[in-house]
């Protein structure tokens, strides 16, 4: 063995040892780090739940049987509309968690959030120890199945019209054990809608285009609760399709010439900005409604199948048919109540005041019943 061979050999051996030592140090560091960053994050979820009390079985709106405790104490809502219903029933104190998009009433913002309605965090939901989870059609089927598999009770609602929304209020009320206030709320909502029908009787429906999204132009199909809300407010959507959130061609809209364009006040300043720019945008500027300024912005409540939707319908009806509201008294003399009689308003009247101030500037990150394309964009943005 020559000198060089020896040198090379010892060098190789050294390198090997050095490599091993390095590997050992690395693995030790990883293990140490694991324990060091352990810190105060001790077990947060603790305290096994008491043995479940004898429950009852309810059937949800999709026909699933759900086993819930006699008295529901901890509710997790997976959609802004459901959060609003729970608060409207006066059960806000039993709401254990809601989604990132639940911004009404303001108390909803203080609740622990479980992520967005489409991709909520299952771990977060479980950690809130719910004894009832409320879901609706904007949630994914997979989420419901996964929660089912964990043995958590999920009550799924599926309203497709204003009347079905009121029925949903009743169903949630009986699941929460507050049938009385649910019935009172439903009666109030039905009464207000009946008053509205009486006022609008004899007026011809306006031909309207509800704009969910401007680019691309997305409107509502005839089987959605939004189309029904438009009908209730004395409007008729010019888009006639069974598709829920149709992507419509602007050419078709120019041909059909709607009397009114309706926008929901979403995205804070965006809506106003969008509307201001319509007059210069190709296609849109050819619409008589844009030229004459027949554009209505309603509260984003119209996007949510919850009691507050009736307020939005009333506002919209006033905008579409000002002539029907010109006379100050109603012939029948029955108390026509636009505002101020819903039971949840009596509980904390200041929400409504706040909401009135921010009628247009409601911070919303996402249209609730978003179609595929929009959802995808939102998922990327998140």
């Amino acid at each position: 063995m020559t000198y060089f061979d020896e040198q090379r050999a010892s060098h190789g051996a050294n390198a090997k040892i050095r490599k091993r030592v390095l590997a050992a140090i690395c693995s030790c560091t990883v293990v140490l780090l694991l324990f060091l960053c352990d810190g105060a994050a001790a077990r947060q979820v603790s305290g096994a739940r008491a043995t479940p009390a004898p429950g009852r079985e309810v059937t949800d709106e999709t026909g699933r049987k759900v086993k819930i405790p006699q008295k529901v104490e901890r509710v997790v809502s997976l959609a802004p509309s459901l959060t609003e219903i729970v608060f409207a029933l006066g059960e806000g104190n039993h709401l254990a968690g809601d989604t990132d998009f639940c911004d009404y009433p303001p108390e909803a913002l203080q609740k622990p959030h479980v992520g967005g309605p489409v991709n909520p965090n299952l771990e977060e939901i479980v950690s809130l120890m719910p004894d009832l989870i409320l879901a609706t059609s904007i949630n994914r089927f997979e989420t419901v199945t996964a929660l089912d598999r964990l043995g958590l009770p999920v009550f799924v609602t599926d309203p497709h019209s204003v009347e079905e929304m009121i029925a949903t209020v009743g169903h949630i009320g009986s699941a929460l054990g507050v049938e009385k206030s649910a019935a009172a709320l439903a009666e109030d909502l039905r009464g207000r809608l009946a008053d509205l029908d009486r006022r609008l009787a004899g007026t011809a429906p306006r031909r309207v285009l509800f704009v969910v999204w401007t680019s691309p132009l997305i409107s509502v199909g005839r089987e959605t609760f939004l189309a029904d809300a438009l009908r209730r407010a004395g409007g008729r959507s010019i888009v006639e399709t069974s598709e829920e959130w149709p992507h419509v061609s602007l050419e078709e809209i120019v041909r059909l010439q709607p009397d009114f364009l309706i926008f929901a006040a979403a995205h804070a300043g965006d809506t106003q900005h969008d509307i201001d720019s319509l007059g210069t945008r190709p296609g849109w500027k050819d619409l008589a409604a844009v030229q004459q300024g027949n554009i209505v912005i309603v509260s984003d409540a119209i996007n949510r199948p919850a009691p507050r939707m009736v307020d939005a319908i009333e506002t919209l009806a006033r905008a579409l048919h000002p002539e029907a509201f010109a006379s100050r008294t109603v012939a029948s003399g029955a108390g026509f109540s636009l505002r101020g009689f819903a039971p949840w308003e009596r509980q904390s009247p200041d929400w409504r005041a706040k909401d009135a101030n921010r009628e247009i500037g409601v911070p919303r990150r996402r249209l609730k019943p978003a179609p595929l394309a929009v959802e995808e964009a939102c998922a990327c943005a998140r």
Partner: protein
Amino acid sequence: MRPLTLKRLLWTCGGLALLLLASVVLALKLGAVPISVTDLILDLGRIAIGRANELPTEYRMIVFDLRLPRILLGILVGAALSVSGASFQALLRNPLADPYVLGVSSGAALGSILALIIAPEFALITPLGAFLGAILTITGVYFLGRREGQLDSTTLLLGGIISASFFSAIIIFLMTTLAGRDLRGMVFWLMGDLSTPVSPAMQWIFTVGLLAGIGAIYSTSADLNLLLTGEREAAHLGVEVTRVKLVVYVSASLLTALAVSASGAIGYVGLLVPHIVRLIFGSDYRLLIPASALCGAITIVLADMLARTVVAPTELPVGAMTALAGAPVFIYLLRRGLP
């Protein structure tokens, strides 16, 4: 390069397995609900001695019903994608081959969506459709890439990329026209997502299928080494080229199909992990296959952990995480010359 000895193989795989274990523990610990490692180890001990009922229900649900199955699924998906990437690279003698780039992932995705549309009542139809989609795609792309009896690497890659975008277009068409069906979950699934738990029966299918696929490919790894020199040369050296190619194509398609039906199209893992393994441990396929499987598993477990925690409680799709990390590394590898 040093010759491969059994000792070196075992040491490398053992080390990587330890690293995988560390990542699993880390991934179990971190999440929307933080949990301490000490508790975790104590609880694992409790479960080992059969006293699982002492644990709080919510805690057991979060760690052992939600987090652990997801991590195990991530391990399977990562191993499958890396091994199928490594074997496509050997078969096509193309360093840029990968199930995602070759369109096999998109083919599998299209296959499983079609299967779901045709027969939604059978739970096992998705992996089957994905497998058919994957195998048809790789056959198609293989013939697209042949020119005058030779595989042309540029044509092959272009064929793969074009098939991938064609299949994506069909998927978008299907998702738009079939508005009545609830395909909204698909948007997440298409980006590569591990957040939706799979049923226990599916977990078993994935485990068995992946072990079989990786085993079959591993049994041909000595032949793959020879195939890298060229098909004719390998045949002269006694390799049954047709049989090896068939076994590896079918197994790699199976692995891709299972990974896609479990978690959607997660990109870059099948491409980058084998390259990084080659850089560190050399290009002997007898070591490359197991090391890629382990490194792929580590990669997905860590990527999914990041996807769960960066913007918690909201989750990112794990495919976005791998692409975020993978694309720059890919460009780096491309610039410095592929190994």
